[in-house]
């Protein structure tokens, strides 16, 4: 008889202090202020007088073990052997000695890791899985981000923006990438193409019907087989029916486009957190380098950089200059699609004489 199978130790989230830089352990909750000696470097001073320097570098997030080991070598040789990752997949090297900062940065440069992403920079783009691993993607994720970060590299290593810029991408309308100052997301433009032969076997029909946000799906018999039908007048092409029912193919090499949204802001600084707003759509999903999407993003960033005041996030800036001016300055077209018609849309209409000329 074979041994009883190993049962998991349900240890949950590990306690972090065992992996934390000693200076951070010692001064936990006792920090006084910080400044940024240069882009990519944070200098935090504790009430005790202790100091810690953080050197932040960009990574590709999806890393091979060699890249990770290389980063470890650098951390051991030039740093204190302690690192952390940010929510945006930047790596942070933690140093208790200022003298180590410059050599570490040099070493990172040699190995091709951009140092930056702090303060008023365009930091690493938050992204998702895409063609590399997901089962429902309309485009890739890592590739889109690599292509865009190549273009935005200069803005990552500098701190020339009015405020920090957080960009996100998502490879389907589900939006795992969340939202940010700028979000580049898949936007399907045609209803799903249904493979009626497979529906019966593959799909829980009631579940699929329930998944549609606009109740456009109804059960139907199609050439003798129980299947599903989509009311194409109602369908908003969101793709929500695809995960529970892969035969409802929403992804289309040509008609799955990219849309760009701006002004998503999660911090409570100044205004309350705000959702992203549509600014551009119909952008071709064009691998391997998505030049059309890159052009839109760069135009928006250049305009923001030029026109916004210090400390204005993308949403603060647009709030001040107004949407008419935003479309004027970015030279993006304003269309009927920009006028909301989803629940609570009235909230988005201008019910005032507040107009900029």
């Amino acid at each position, binding site marked *: 008889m074979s041994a009883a199978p190993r049962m998991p130790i349900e240890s949950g989230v590990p306690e972090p202090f065992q992996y934390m830089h000693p200076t951070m352990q010692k001064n936990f909750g006792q920090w006084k202020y910080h400044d940024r000696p240069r882009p990519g470097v944070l200098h935090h001073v504790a009430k005790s007088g202790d100091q810690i320097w953080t050197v932040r570098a960009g990574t590709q997030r999806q890393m091979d073990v060699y890249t990770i080991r290389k980063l470890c070598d650098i951390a051991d040789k030039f740093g204190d052997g302690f690192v952390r990752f940010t929510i945006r997949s930047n790596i942070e090297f933690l140093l208790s000695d200022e003298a180590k900062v410059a050599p570490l940065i040099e070493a990172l440069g040699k190995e091709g890791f951009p140092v930056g992403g702090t303060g008023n920079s365009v930091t690493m783009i938050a992204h998702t899985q895409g063609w590399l691993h997901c089962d429902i993607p309309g485009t890739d994720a890592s590739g889109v981000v690599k292509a865009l970060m190549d273009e935005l590299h200069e803005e990552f290593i500098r701190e020339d923006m009015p405020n920090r810029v957080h960009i996100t991408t998502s490879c389907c309308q589900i939006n795992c990438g969340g939202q940010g100052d700028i979000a580049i997301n898949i936007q399907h433009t045609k209803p799903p193409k249904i493979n009626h032969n497979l529906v019966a076997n593959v799909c829980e029909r009631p579940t699929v019907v329930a998944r549609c946000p606009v109740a456009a799906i109804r059960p139907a018999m199609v050439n003798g087989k129980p299947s599903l039908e989509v009311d194409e007048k109602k369908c908003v092409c969101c793709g929500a029916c695809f995960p529970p029912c892969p035969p409802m193919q929403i992804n289309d090499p040509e008609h799955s486009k990219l849309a760009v949204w701006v002004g998503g802001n999660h911090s409570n600084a100044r205004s309350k957190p705000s959702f992203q707003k549509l600014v551009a759509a119909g952008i071709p999903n064009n691998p391997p380098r998505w030049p059309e999407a890159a052009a839109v993003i760069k135009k928006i960033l250049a305009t923001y950089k030029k026109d916004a005041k210090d400390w204005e996030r993308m949403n603060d800036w647009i709030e001040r200059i107004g949407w008419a001016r935003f479309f004027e300055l970015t030279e993006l077209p304003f269309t009927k699609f920009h006028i909301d018609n989803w629940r609570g849309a009235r909230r988005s209409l*201008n019910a005032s*004489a507040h107009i900029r000329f």
Partner: protein
Amino acid sequence: MAKPMHPTPRIDQLESGPWPSFITGLKRLANDDGKPYQEMVIDLLGQLETSYETRKGYWKGGTVGVIGYGGGVIPRFTELLDDNKKPKFPAAAEFHTLRIMPPAGMHYTTDLLRKMCDVWEKYGSGLIAFHGQSGDIMFQGAPSKNVQPAFDEFNEMGFDLGGAGPAVRTGMSCVGAARCEQSCANEQKIHRMLVNNFLDDMHRPALPYKFKFKVSGCPNDCMNAIERADMAVIGTWRDDMKVDQAEVKNYVASMGRKKIIDNVITRCPTNALSLNDDDTLTVDNRNCVRCMHCINVMTKALSPGDDKGVTVLMGGKRTLKIGDLMGTVVIPFKKLETDEDYESLVEVAQNAIDFFAENALEHERTGEMIERIGLVNFLEGIGLEVDPNMISEPRQSSYVRMDGWDEEAAKWFERKQQAA
């Protein structure tokens, strides 16, 4: 010798106190021996006292009007009957109101007011309200037989009935250009052109529901137009506001920097104001939203620019039945100089009313219709192009079918080119 007064212990309590009392006024009429309205008012007081006692109203509607018109009179018949089903207060059993439109801006000579009083003491109760919430003079309380002759006399004086029922309603315009430095428009002209071009829709109610015009000369909106009109016309300006820096310095000197910062600079909704270290003011005119605040506070130093015009909003109304609705911008800026300009404004109103007449459900207001069919369809229906000034922000939801994007984008660039 007149019929006796009814005891009115409750409403009598409304005679004391510093504010002018409508009860005292009614009693004055009720004591007016020999006047045609005396008994009517005595009985009116009787019924009103009953309402105060029982906390119930006792009027019902009906159909009373004047020859040639389908509206403008609010008929009232008493529902308060005695045991033999006869009116308890017979002299006030009929108590109809004539809604008469005043001169735009509500200007009067004493001579005009006296003439109006004379007519109303002959045919009505002697009770007049200046004015109703929609801007009519309300001649309140006439028996059915007197409605026509009373109207005929007012009509001969140059006055006309206002709106009631599913019709174009009486409009309102602020004092504006007549006495206000903030005025950016000829309010009375806009008001009169709009209403007087739709008198047929006013006097012969045949719309799905009411339609109201209101005109304010500036964004202070003293006529509550944005919230209370189906079509609101608001004066505004397109160029830079006028700044008299010398006067600015006077304000800083008299109020102090801190107070200017706290009362003016920090109150600007778009941070378009900056107080310079030399006590002069810099205005970021491109980002000023014409809210009027700084101009209101520093009226001597700041004033609207010279390139004046109007913003048009549609769809405002009160609660029934989907909840209160503010109007929505449908024309961000419209110059009103030439006759053509004014005519094209009337045309916009015409298109809106025609579309409303054809597409609104019964008892559905313009704002409710827009809510139901969507702003984009409404704009297409009345022949206006989409514009970012019509929204406070673009859509947040990705749940929309956007094929056709390229066509729509092309339209925009075309319009831009034509504009250029």
